[in-house]
Structure formats: structure tokens, C-alpha cells
């Protein structure tokens, strides 16, 4: 395997992700009318009777989401005069010197100047070209935290350093000051035990649902009720808190409560909650379903192939055809009914919650049912193919017995195409399972994409597309790399190989 090939392949992978992003960007921000994003916005609805405030809100939101640059007379005057002063008041009057100056300045800059419906105050806006938005999105994608990240004019004495230390919970940490995050690298008792905040992905903020939250936080933050425990803060205060120390970030203005708990400006934090994050929930469910699928599907497929046309094969075939023929909605409901009736398992996830193992059983089984069937089908098919191959006949002629032939000459060959699919199925678990999660009301990723599309949460759609595209492209690459481990005929290189 050539290193050069892998790099080129990675480059190509990211190029294709980039192309997908361009397409999604163009589709979302030019084809979807920008007015639609307010359909699910509660604030917007409340402003129904106030056309000026509504216009202002709409414009501010669009600016925040990057659709346009928005300028108001207020901002224009505030730059010149102190807020609340007499000059400011005079300048804000319609027909004042600044009024015309404002219109003049921005019309020259190519802005469109419009007037509010009731107050007739002017405002100016200019659309941001798509290419520029995309470039901005890409250039802000990776955020690297340095001691110069925080530039707070109200806090000129902020120290700038990085040093080794410990977190209040006793974990080792690389502590920064002047950085956005307090703990750049830290250890704690949560999976995966070692965490870092130096390089973060900035996929934008969610809107209108989870407004103002980083899209990734929406996906990765734990859900449910807070888990409080006794913690001692750096000031020595001990109280019940659900604080996640690792998440501490810079907070420009501290209130009294903050000052009681923290010795520095790092006072913004997220809390630990009892349920795993959306992506975590989907992942846990997916992983167990996958283990179940391979654990059952593979041996079942082998057994079917070994007893081809026998009773085991017929039973397996019946199962496969059942799963293919019956709509998934129908058999998931059927298995849920059987599970709740016969084993008294909860029929929905929230009944017993994520903390109870029983909540997971039915969703995981439901999720694995179709994978089991397809794995059985393909394993059987590959094994039967191999059984009929010439080298298996030759192996028999060599005098090897059934067992030796099966393990040395059939199994490994048959498993190759299945191994290729493992990274993809692993990656597939995090995208969630739409139907299963909906039926059992599991708070996972399954509904994320359709919901964000419905809510016109365009940032989220872009972020999810980016994540899913990256993951699938990488998992195909991983699949190919795994293939080179099991199949000596395959080597990843630019040159055309002989087969």
C-alpha cells in the first residue's frame, strides 16, 4: 500500500465533500426562499402586529445567518454620537443631516436602501454572494484555540499562557488563559476519557430550533435532566452542580454567582445530563444492532450455505423474504408487540429511560432485523459461490476434509466482500435510524436531518450534510484499506494492478 495513494485519495475525498457542500449551499441558499426560515420561529410569530420590529428582526436574523449585510440608521449614528445624547436624538430624526448621509453612503456602496413601514426610518442591506458565504463557512470551519483567541477590550489584563495542571475533579489538564476554552486537553471519567478543545469544528449556529447553539453542541450534548453531584469549585465553594468542567469557556462579564464559584473569567459551561447525546444514543443503538447483526447474520448465512436447500436454508430464506417483503414499519410494530407482550419490555424508549437496559432491547432488535437478513443473504451467496469454485474442488481433490476446506478455502474468501462493508455500516450507525427511532421515540440522530429540513434549519442541514458526506467518504476509504488487509490481490496504488 502506497502512502502517496492514501494522501491523494484523502485529498480527492475532501474535494468531493467540498463539491457536495457547494451544491448543498447553492440549493439551500438560493432555491429555498429566505422567508421560509421564519415559518417555525416563535419570536417572529409574536411580532405579528409590529411591522417595524418584525422587519428589524427579519433583517437581523438574515444578517446573523449570513444572507446579507444589514445597516441601520441607529448603528450609523451610534458610531458618531453617544447613545442617548441629544445629538444622537437629533440625528435619528427623519430628514436630519445623518439621515441623508446614511442613505447616500450606503447607496454609493451598492446597498439597497428601504424604509420601515411605520416610522419611515431608512435601513440598508446588501446580499452576500453565495461564493463569499461558502468561502467564509469553509475558512471558519476549523477553529484553533490559542492564548490570543480572546480579545476582550474590557479585560486588558487577561493573562496569556498555557500550562499543565489539574481539573477540579482531579483529572490532568492543559490549562489555557487567553484561550476560548479553559481546559485545552483534559482527562475525566467520561468516554473517551481524554478530551481536547484545541481544534474545534465550527459548523455554524442552529436556527430556529436550539437557537444560538453551535450545531455540533446540539448533536453532541447530553440530553434529559441534569445530573447533579457535590462539587468543590476553585474558590472553595462546595455545592450541588451538574457542571461539566471540561466545557468551561471565556465569559466576558461575570455576575455575582459566577464570582462565587470561579477565580477567573472562565465561567461559561455546559451541564452533565443523564441521557447520552443524540449522536451518542444513535451510536450506542447502532453499535449494538451491528454487533447483533454480524453475530447472528454471519453464522446464520454460513449455516444456510452449508445446508444449502436443507431445512436450515429454507427457514433462513423464509426470514429473508419476510423482511424484504414486509414493510419495515409493519414488522417493527409486530416485533414491538411480541416484545411487549411476551417479555414485558417497554414499548417506547422514554418509559424507562436511557438508564434502563430494557429500554434499549426492542429498538436494538428492531434495528438489527433488516441487517441480519441482508447479511444472511450475502454471506450465504458468497459462501455458495466459493463452494462452487474450482479451487475448492481442487482442495477436495487434494484430500482435505470438509472442515479444512471450509475454514482454509471458503470462509476467508467469502468474507472479503463482507469485511469491506464493515466500516460503512459502522459509520452508518451515527446517522441514526429514522423509522426505528420514531417508533420507539428514541432521541437520536434519525429525525435530525428530516426535522431540520422541515424547520428550514439550514445551518443544521449544511452541517449534517458535511458530517455525513465526510464520514461516508472516509468509511469507503477505510473499507478499501481494510480490504487490503484481508485480500492480498488488492493493493492501493495508482498503477493498474493485475488481478
Amino acid at each position: 500500500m502506497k502512502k502517496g495513494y492514501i494522501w491523494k485519495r484523502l485529498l480527492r475525498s475532501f474535494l468531493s465533500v467540498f463539491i457536495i457542500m457547494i451544491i448543498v449551499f447553492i440549493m439551500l441558499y438560493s432555491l429555498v426562499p429566505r422567508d421560509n426560515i421564519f415559518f417555525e420561529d416563535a419570536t417572529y410569530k409574536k411580532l405579528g402586529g409590529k411591522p417595524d420590529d418584525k422587519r428589524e428582526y427579519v433583517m437581523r436574523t438574515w444578517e446573523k445567518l449570513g444572507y446579507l449585510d444589514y445597516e441601520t440608521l441607529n448603528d450609523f449614528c451610534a458610531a458618531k454620537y453617544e447613545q442617548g445624547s441629544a445629538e444622537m436624538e437629533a440625528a435619528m430624526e427623519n430628514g436630519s443631516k445623518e439621515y441623508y448621509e446614511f442613505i447616500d453612503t450606503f447607496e454609493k456602496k451598492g446597498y439597497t436602501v428601504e424604509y420601515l413601514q411605520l416610522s419611515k426610518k431608512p435601513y440598508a442591506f446588501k446580499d452576500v454572494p453565495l461564493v463569499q458565504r461558502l468561502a467564509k463557512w469553509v475558512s471558519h470551519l476549523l477553529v484553533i484555540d490559542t492564548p490570543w483567541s480572546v480579545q476582550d477590550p474590557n479585560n486588558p489584563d487577561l493573562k496569556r499562557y498555557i500550562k499543565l495542571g489539574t481539573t477540579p475533579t482531579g483529572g490532568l489538564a492543559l490549562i489555557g488563559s487567553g484561550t476560548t476554552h479553559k481546559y485545552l486537553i483534559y482527562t475525566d471519567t467520561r468516554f473517551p476519557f481524554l478530551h481536547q478543545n484545541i481544534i474545534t469544528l465550527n459548523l455554524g449556529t442552529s436556527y430556529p430550533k436550539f437557537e444560538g447553539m453551535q450545531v455540533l453542541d446540539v448533536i453532541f450534548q447530553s440530553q434529559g435532566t441534569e445530573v447533579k453531584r457535590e462539587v468543590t469549585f476553585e474558590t472553595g465553594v462546595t455545592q450541588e452542580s451538574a457542571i461539566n468542567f471540561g466545557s468551561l469557556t471565556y465569559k466576558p462579564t461575570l455576575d455575582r454567582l459566577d464570582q462565587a464559584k470561579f477565580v477567573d473569567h472562565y465561567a461559561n459551561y455546559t451541564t452533565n445530563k443523564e441521557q447520552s447525546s443524540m449522536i451518542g444514543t444513535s451510536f450506542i443503538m447502532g453499535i449494538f444492532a451491528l454487533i447483533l447483526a454480524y453475530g447472528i447474520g454471519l453464522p446464520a448465512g454460513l449455516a444456510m450455505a452449508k445446508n444449502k436447500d436443507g431445512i436450515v436454508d429454507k427457514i433462513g430464506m423464509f426470514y429473508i423474504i419476510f423482511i424484504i417483503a414486509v414493510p419495515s414499519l409493519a414488522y417493527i410494530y409486530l416485533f414491538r408487540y411480541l416484545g411487549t407482550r411476551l417479555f414485558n419490555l417497554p414499548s417506547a424508549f422514554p418509559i424507562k429511560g436511557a438508564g434502563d437496559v430494557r429500554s434499549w432491547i426492542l429498538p436494538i432488535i428492531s434495528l438489527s432485523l433488516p441487517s441480519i437478513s441482508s447479511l444472511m443473504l450475502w454471506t450465504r451467496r458468497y459462501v455458495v459461490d466459493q463452494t462452487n469454485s474450482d479451487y475448492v474442488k481442487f482442495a477436495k481433490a487434494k484430500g482435505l476434509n470438509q472442515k479444512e476446506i471450509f475454514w482454509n478455502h471458503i470462509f476467508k474468501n467469502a468474507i472479503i466482500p463482507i469485511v469491506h462493508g464493515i466500516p460503512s455500516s459502522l459509520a452508518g450507525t451515527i446517522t441514526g435510524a429514522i423509522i426505528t427511532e420514531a417508533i420507539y421515540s428514541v432521541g437520536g440522530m434519525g429525525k435530525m436531518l428530516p426535522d431540520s429540513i422541515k424547520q428550514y434549519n439550514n445551518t443544521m442541514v449544511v452541517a449534517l450534510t458535511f458530517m455525513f458526506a465526510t464520514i461516508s467518504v472516509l468509511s469507503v476509504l477505510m473499507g478499501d484499506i481494510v480490504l487490503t488487509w484481508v485480500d492480498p490481490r488488492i493493493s492501493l496504488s495508482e498503477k493498474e494492478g493485475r488481478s
Partner: protein
Amino acid sequence: MEEKKVILSAKDVEVRFRVRENYLTAIRGVSLDIYDGETFAIVGESGSGKSVFTKTFTGMIDSNGAITGGSIMFEGKDLTKLTTDKDWEGIRGAKISTIFQDPMTSLNPIRTIGSQISEVIEKHQGIPHEEAKAQAIELMEKVGIKDAANRFDEYPFQYSGGMRQRIVIAIALSCHPKILICDEPTTALDVTIQAQIIKLIKDLQKELKFTTIYITHDLGVVANVADRVGVMYAGQIIEYGTAEDVFYNPQHPYTWALLSSLPQLGVKGEDLYFITGTPPSLFNKIQGDAFAPRNPHALKIDFIKEPPMFKVSDTHYAKTWLLDPRAPKLDKPEAIQDLHGKIKRMTDKGGAFHVE
């Protein structure tokens, strides 16, 4: 031949396959003695049962088929009675080996050449891996693989077709078999490689003293390597004898037709000879001589009663009514007269074997 000892003796072997609720009789009562150390060639067109017949020697018949009659005696054992892998242990691959037609697919593509050879040696000789490896390398050298020690860990895709067939031969010979069945060993190979492989088998046979059974369409190969020849048609051996007997004094009309259709005997500018019609369906019971419908010389009795095996000489037998004293005397087709001279000219052009 008479003083030679019989190594394998087939008596009235019948093989039937079950194909979609019907029974197909692929081998219809074949009796044959194979002598120790000889090269016996079985010729015949596709579907005549050549491969199926030899597969009975190693219990390799597909799962939908079974030996339904007769016996095959080898070293005091009736091979038709063996069923399980355990029964066959020590015979299949050890005393009776087979090499198949297509070397490109006979080797497992994802296992090393070396492991595929040494696995047989370990299996049949029960020796540790290191010793087996040493033996395997020796064998590889013997079949003409240069730099064998370094090529031991290579994969089949790194070998050419001819080299793969050499490896297949090495595997087949790894346990010093008594009988080597070569099921069309050169059909899938390049013409230039064919001669090398044939020569290799011949040389190894001289050195290791095993019996070879060739299955082939290629009469050129037969003429060159075989001591004795059996001609099969529709699941029966219809004529057998020494190579000279069958080539220069053929008795059965099918043998005549087969020899006449040698492309090498064609005369430039004229159409090549071919046998009209198709072989009979083996699903049905065959009345009389199976070849009769395609035989321009067929007698009335050929359609009514199956001919017995007539003795032509001590070594030569043929299953045709033409040998009955009451039958009319027929001349052999012109194409195969003086076949001796023609074949000689074909094969003796300085080398061991020439095909053109």
C-alpha cells in the same frame, strides 16, 4: 502389457445424476483395468462422461450424483463403497491425485502458493510445518519453478498460467500418488506452454513412477503420451487398446469419425470433417448402439441391440457390431488411412510434441 500388474480395476461402473426430478445415467456400465505405471488416455467429446468416470476414482462426483452400480477395486478396497471424508483419507489426494483443467482457478487466490502446497504435505504425511515447507520448496523446484524459496510466499496472481499449472502438478504429486488423473491439463493453456506441461508430466512420471490417466479432447496429446487409449461415447468406453491399436487400427465407427475430425488431417481448401448430429440424451434409455443415429455405417442391429465388447487382439477391444463375423466388411474412411504416417509427421518434427 500383460505382465503388468493391474492397479485399478473398474467393473460395470454406473453413475446416475438426479437433475430436476429426472435421472441421467452419465456412465453406463464401464469396465476398465488400469495397469501400474502406464499412461492411459481417455478421449471423447464433451459430455461423454470422461471426467465423471475418473471422478469416481476419488469420490469427487457432485452431490446430486451417485455410483449406482459396479465396483472399482484399488489396493484391495472397493472405492465405490467409500462415502465419508474419513473413508477417503489416505486415498484422495494421497494415492490418487487429480489435476484440473484450469490452473487460473485451481488455486485459492488469497492464499500463498507455498501454504497451498505444504497444507497437503502436512495433511497426508503428518509432518511439522517447517519440514513440509522444505519439501514444498523442493517440489516447486522439481516442477521447474526457479528461485522457489523466494516465491514460496507469493500469491497465485503473481504467477503465470503455465507456472500455476506447474504448482497444481506439484500439489498433486506432493504425496507421491500411485495414480495421477490429469483432467484436460493443457486445455486452458497457451499452445507453447502445453508442450512444456506435457513434457513435465512425462518426465515426472518417469522419475516418480506413477500411473497417469489423461482425460483430453486433444488427440495430438494422446498420440504423443499415451500407452493405451480408451474412447468414450455416451457414458461408455466403446473402444480401447494400445495407442497404436486405436490410432492405426481403429474399429469403432465413432473412433473413425473422431480421428477423421482431427483438424490437422484437414486438406487445405476443403471443409474440415465433423460428426453430424448430437450425442444422445442420457436421460432416456438408450436402445442399441448409442452412436448408431449419427453413424453413416450403422447396421440395422445397431438400432436394436447393444453390441458386446469384441476382442480385436489381446490388447485391443471394441464395442461395435462391425466386428461380428456376420457383419459386412467396411473400409475405414479415407482421412484416417495411413494415420501412422500422418501422425508421425505431426509429432516428430524434432520435438517431443507439436500441435500444428
